[in-house]
């Protein structure tokens, strides 16, 4: 009985220590990434190449999802708003939900699934096939050559993707609200413009997406770098990337939103 309790406690302790250790390791890794970042700016083509892989190749999924999210928002919003006789406010509803929340958050979640997993798998495989070791033996730091360019590419791509998401979402909402439902186009835009604040809504949305960009890309990179160099290790790391990125995005979103609303 006593030993069973002790075992449970030991299990908890082990996990806590384990996670703390990993967290510490990840912070040290983050520091390395920052220290070696100079390389990714001095040799910009490395970073540009990664922007292609993380940003450009994520465009399709981001744009298509944004379009549908915008249309659904308009349909649902109209359904509720018309009960209160204020269906013109649909533009406000669509734009505010997209710019403040859905744009940054959904983009980050899709990014984690599309680009994050690709980064983790690629780096994990490079490690498993000794490419990173080989680089080290050639006196080239893998953090400078492989990790830092991917990090900055992700941080750069995320706000652009989020802005595109919001914009296309608003267009989707417009297409449903105005031609399909018959809301007045002038009211749609003017009410939206009156209520969406540049500083409070749009800039805050961009700040969120930059933070999500840092979090998602970093998690993907760390999991790849930390993955055991086996097929199973890489596949587990990929899963962890999605789970951890999603949790980080949603948690950070809550924290940032509460600060932004209070301030």
């Amino acid at each position, binding site marked *: 009985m006593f030993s069973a309790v002790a075992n449970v406690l030991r299990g908890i302790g082990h996990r806590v220590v384990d996670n703390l250790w990993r967290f510490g390791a990840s912070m040290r890794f983050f520091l390395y990434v920052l220290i070696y970042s100079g390389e990714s700016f001095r040799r910009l*083509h490395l970073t540009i190449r990664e922007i*292609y892989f993380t*940003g450009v190749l994520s465009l399709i999924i981001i744009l298509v999802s944004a379009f549908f999210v915008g249309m659904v928002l308009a349909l649902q919003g109209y359904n509720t708003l018309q009960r209160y006789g204020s269906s013109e406010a649909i533009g406000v509803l669509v734009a505010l939900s997209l710019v403040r929340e859905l744009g940054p958050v959904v983009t980050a979640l899709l990014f984690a699934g599309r680009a994050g997993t690709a980064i983790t798998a690629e780096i994990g495989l490079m490690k498993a096939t000794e490419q990173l070791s080989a680089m080290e033996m050639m006196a080239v730091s893998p953090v400078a050559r492989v990790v830092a360019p991917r990090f900055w590419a992700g941080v750069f*791509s995320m706000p652009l993707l989020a802005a595109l998401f919001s914009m296309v979402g608003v267009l989707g909402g417009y297409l449903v609200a105005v031609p399909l439902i018959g809301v007045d186009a002038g009211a749609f*835009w003017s009410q939206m*413009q009156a209520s969406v604040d540049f500083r409070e*809504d*749009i800039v805050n949305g*961009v700040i969120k997406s930059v933070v999500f960009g840092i979090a998602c890309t970093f998690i993907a990179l760390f999991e790849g770098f930390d993955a055991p160099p086996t097929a199973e290790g890489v596949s587990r790391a990929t899963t962890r990337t999605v789970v951890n990125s999603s949790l980080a995005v949603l948690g950070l979103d809550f924290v940032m939103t509460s600060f932004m609303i209070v301030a």
Partner: protein
Amino acid sequence: MERTTIDLWVGIFAAAGAAALFGLALKVGNFNSATMGETYSVTGAFENIGSLKPRAPVKSAGVVVGRVDNIRFDPETYEALVTVKVDKRYPFPKDTFANIYTAGLLGEQYIGLEAGGDEKMLQNGDKFSKTQDAVVLEKMISQFLYSKASESNDTKEAD
């Protein structure tokens, strides 16, 4: 893939992203009115501001000319001190009247400016000399009921 092709795609991506940001700022948001360029601030003391909030519009003749900057409580006079920022393009006379109005019956509250006739204009850091408080609905209703009651009392006494 060729480096030039990658460069082209990344260029398109960056341009589209920047365009989307601009689009959000101009078409979706109120970037135009939020960046009023130069402003001057004027403070007014109110006994009751109702539910006026920072960033509420300041209007004159129905046109937005500024925004509420901040709201403080003055512990000496027990009044609310409201600072508003007004666009430099719109100078107002010294004796301008600042009222707190409600948009519609239950809408948001804003500050309405009614220009006076003074020769001198308001400067940065000045005070509104004349202010009018927000109309608080509960107060109005209770006043109305009270006056009705006293009216009926009066008629009773007259009998």
